[in-house]
């Protein structure tokens, strides 16, 4: 009896889940917001013949081509729906999706969420000025569009992404005015045992770092962007050294002329759908904030709902691929999971994940941001960009006793705008915690997880329910 498996996302985890579930004779549906498979890490260029390709590391490119090739060969055997946004999921496994002006309700025996992560930034004065972008956004423009975001770019933040983006900009012929990183690489290098387990990826990272070093890009370790100058667009950025608590060390500011500031302080799990379906969550800031609790097969607290890849905690594309296969298999053969044979069949993927998770936790140590950095937002700094809610408006709400995300949202409108809080919620929670919120907790997620027009909702065919 073939099962039906519904997969949300077509990045490394989603593609491998689809391949594995289909190989086990499941009927597979894949919904993905992008027009082409690949997700963010394996984002495809709009013209495969030029650009994009040569800027990424050869190891990453080989993995990307192999996986996307395998998924594309599968596409006539599964129901693949690109440019389709999933905007509601219920515990029964009922998934609501929108494609342009049409919405539809999908049902399946199992749902595998592989919705990945989004970038986070720490608000600072001037960060809404055109020209301040997420570093991954700058990378996406380069990978998918072959466009350099600016003529002189400052890359800043924490973790490995700023280094990768700086190197890729250089390889594409761009000018990187400065690379400012919160932590030194030495802090990570101390965990040599864990790094050895991920030595292939470490080598890729070193090649990116070598590009930056050879280009002579000024590297500022322990520096963060503290203010952007320029009214119409970015004209320069002030970088300053911060101490272990994240406070600015006086007289360390340096002004760097640039037209783009690319920032990344890590990632937040796209866990809205899991939360909406009632999945139990855990909090772990460096691995993505609030992330779904999963077992070794990707099973959540809600029967039939699985989560795989970065959405279940940031661990990179290789873990996502292994986990996608494990969850795809488990979703296709739910009652077989207990059998020893099932486990033996997946032993390679289970071992691969085990090995890389140790490595990724060493990388995650780079993403522990000191709480003081959230004080970079001055009173007039906008925190919620959609609704223009400033840090002082939030602080007033905290002072009046509103310290949980639900009440902060009701009182200030932070998180109520177009992006659904995906840009500001982590910042609102962090600021609330600075003001003594014991545990800011979670905002109750409600449909719609994506903006959908009333006309599209009204288009729902009664027969599809």
């Amino acid at each position, binding site marked *: 009896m073939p099962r039906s498996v519904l997969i949300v996302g077509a990045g490394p985890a989603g593609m491998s889940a689809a391949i594995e579930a289909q190989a086990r004779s499941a009927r597979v549906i894949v919904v993905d*917001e992008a027009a082409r498979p690949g997700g*963010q890490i394996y984002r495809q260029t*709009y*013209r495969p013949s*030029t*650009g994009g*390709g*040569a*800027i990424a590391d*050869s190891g990453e490119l080989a993995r990307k081509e192999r996986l996307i090739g395998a998924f594309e060969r599968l596409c006539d055997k599964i129901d693949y729906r690109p440019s389709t946004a999933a905007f509601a999921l219920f515990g029964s496994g009922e998934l609501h999706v929108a494609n342009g002006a049409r919405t539809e309700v999908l049902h399946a025996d199992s749902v595998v969420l592989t919705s990945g992560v*989004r*970038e986070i930034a720490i608000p600072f004065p001037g960060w*809404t*000025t*055109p*020209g*301040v*972008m*997420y570093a*991954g*956004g*700058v990378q*996406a*423009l380069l990978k*998918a*569009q*072959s*466009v*350099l*975001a600016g003529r002189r770019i400052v890359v800043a933040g924490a973790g490995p992404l700023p280094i990768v983006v700086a*190197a890729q900009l*250089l*390889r*594409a*012929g761009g000018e990187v005015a400065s690379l400012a990183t919160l932590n030194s690489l030495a802090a990570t290098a101390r965990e040599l045992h864990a790094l050895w387990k991920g030595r292939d990826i470490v*080598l890729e990272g*070193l*090649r*990116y*770092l*070598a*590009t930056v070093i*050879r280009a002579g890009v000024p590297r500022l370790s322990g520096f963060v962007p503290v203010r952007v100058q320029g009214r*119409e*667009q970015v004209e320069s950025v002030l970088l300053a050294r911060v101490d272990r608590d994240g406070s600015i060390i006086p007289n360390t500011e340096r002004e760097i002329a640039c037209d783009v500031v690319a920032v990344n302080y890590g990632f937040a799990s796209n866990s809205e759908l899991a939360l909406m379906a009632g999945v139990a969550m855990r909090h772990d800031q460096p691995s993505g904030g609030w992330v779904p609790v999963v077992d070794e097969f990707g099973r959540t607290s809600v029967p039939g709902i699985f989560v795989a890849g970065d959405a279940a905690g940031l661990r990179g594309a290789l873990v996502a691929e292994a986990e996608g296969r494990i969850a795809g298999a488990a979703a296709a053969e739910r009652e077989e999971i207990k059998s020893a044979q099932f486990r033996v069949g997946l032993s390679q993927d289970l071992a691969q994940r085990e090995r890389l998770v140790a490595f990724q936790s060493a990388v995650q140590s780079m993403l522990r941001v000191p709480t003081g950095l959230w004080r970079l937002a001055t009173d007039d700094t*906008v925190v919620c*960009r*959609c609704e*223009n809610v400033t840090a002082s408006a939030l602080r007033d709400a905290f002072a009046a006793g509103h310290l949980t995300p639900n009440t902060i949202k009701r009182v200030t409108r932070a998180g109520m*705008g*177009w*992006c659904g809080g*995906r*840009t500001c919620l982590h910042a609102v929670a962090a600021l609330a915690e600075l003001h003594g919120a014991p545990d800011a907790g979670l905002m109750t997620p409600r449909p719609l997880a994506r*903006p959908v027009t009333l006309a599209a909702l009204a288009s729902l065919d009664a027969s599809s329910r």
Partner: protein
Amino acid sequence: MVWWRDVLRRGSANKAKATLATASEGGFEFLFEGRPVCAQTGQSVGAALLASGIRTLRIDEAGNKKGLLCGIGYCFECRCVIDGEPDRRACMVEARPGMSVRRQEGLS
């Protein structure tokens, strides 16, 4: 350590291979605020505008200038008016010949 030298070599060797699209090859034009802008087939409106040095895509309800932030569709900062329809994301909409794009001001 031989591999270290290999790492350095490979880190720099890639640079020559990277090619960026230029406005001259196989492009077309669309309108931004009534003025022609070059784009490549398949390119997003936001990417084409950025390649032409245009960063402000929206003036929000409070009068703040806004441009691309996430570049992949989730932040909704780059909403502009495309062929008369407001709230289209410049980073997600593919540029087409003859398209008319305007800055979004306030709610429309």
